């Protein structure tokens, strides 16, 4: 399956623009900068942010595309876990990997960095296809989810399971999941897009 298609990109952009409307002063962190297409369509007019990209050539291209951003070449999961990018009080976290988003989400939420009262997280999750094939049994980040939903049912309820997982991870980091949307897309609905607004537990919405 190709890694993206035009419809998927348009829906990604629509979702991000919808989530951005919830944040009057967004400070964005892109965990997977890629070719910078999402930045071009969604973040270009915003203030400085943070972006990670593992590929050397893409990272160099991102640095030219957005010279006012902090651009890091390397694995985003370990970099985020170490607090990389904490000089910016990020309140909008964009996770768009080719595969699973949860390690990056974990790394961001659990690391030593400013954690805003209100946080937006927008995700492209590529795990559903794998869940369809294996029930999710061999996906480390979904171990507890598989136990909760059952390998035979997880595919059908994957979006709901993602919401539950996001709720759990938010709670571990001291947040409540307050607003949520998600849907399946891409070929054979193999991709899952979702967006969440988290607020500090006990704080206002």
């Amino acid at each position, binding site marked *: 399956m190709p890694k993206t298609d035009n419809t998927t990109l*348009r*829906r990604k*952009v*629509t*979702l991000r*623009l*919808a*989530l951005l409307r*919830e944040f009057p002063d967004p400070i964005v962190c892109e965990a997977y900068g890629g070719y910078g297409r999402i930045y071009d*369509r969604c973040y270009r007019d915003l203030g400085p942010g943070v972006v*990670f990209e593992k590929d050397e050539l893409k*990272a*160099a291209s*991102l*640095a*030219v595309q957005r*010279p006012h951003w*902090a*651009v*890091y*070449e*390397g*694995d985003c999961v*370990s*970099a985020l*876990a*170490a*607090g*990389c990018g904490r000089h910016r009080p990020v309140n909008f976290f964009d996770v768009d990997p080719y595969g699973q988003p949860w390690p990056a989400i974990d*790394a961001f*939420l*659990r*690391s*030593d960095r400013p954690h805003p009262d209100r946080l937006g997280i927008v995700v492209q999750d590529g795990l559903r296809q794998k869940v369809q094939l294996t029930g999710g049994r061999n996906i480390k980040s979904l171990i507890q989810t598989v136990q909760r939903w059952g390998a035979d049912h997880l595919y059908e309820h994957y979006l709901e399971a993602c*919401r539950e997982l996001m*709720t*759990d991870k938010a*709670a*571990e*980091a*001291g947040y*409540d*999941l*307050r*607003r*949520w*949307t*998600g*849907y399946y897309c891409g070929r054979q609905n193999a991709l899952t*897009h979702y*967006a*969440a*607004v988290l607020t500090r*537990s006990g704080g206002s*919405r």
Partner: protein
Amino acid sequence: MAESWRNRIVGHGAESPDRLAANPRNWRLHPKSQQDALVGVLADVGWVQDVVVNQTTGFILDGHLRVATALAAGQASIPVVYVDLTPDEEALILATLDPLGAMAEADTTQLRSLLADVTTDSAAVQTILTELAEAAEAATLREIDPDTRSKGMTVTTATTVRPVLALADVAVFDQAIQATGLDNRGEALMAICRAYLGETRAENR
């Protein structure tokens, strides 16, 4: 006063669709779903937009599908707007007309409001409207009930990550590194940064 943009439209008319020439450089493909939807809209409403023809070359610039649909439906004439463009200008318009339109993003609130007022008898058009409505709906965040728990946060150590900067003058970077007198370039860079921060804080007192 701003320079006026030229009006390249030189006339309007109606032509028999079999007299219009497809542009040999047309790159757009029209899936069956689009064809069916167009037939539905034309049957429901009729012509609301001219086919664009370049008077210089005689070729269609925009409206190939409308022409093909009209031919298939045995329509006697279709509305045409004539423009006067050089072959180079024709190529530019042919390349950018649709992509420019496709760059428009969705204001999902406005779209949902509009779709609530739109009806059609065409099954193909209804399919498109339904897809639009689903996409708008899917991108709308909703309130959910929080499920709060609290656990601790963890910090892990970093792996290698490189900041990537696009420098207009790389040489000055090396000059500064050399000026520190430090052999270790990483330490030299840190020394430069600390010195700068120290000076900045001193100035700000």
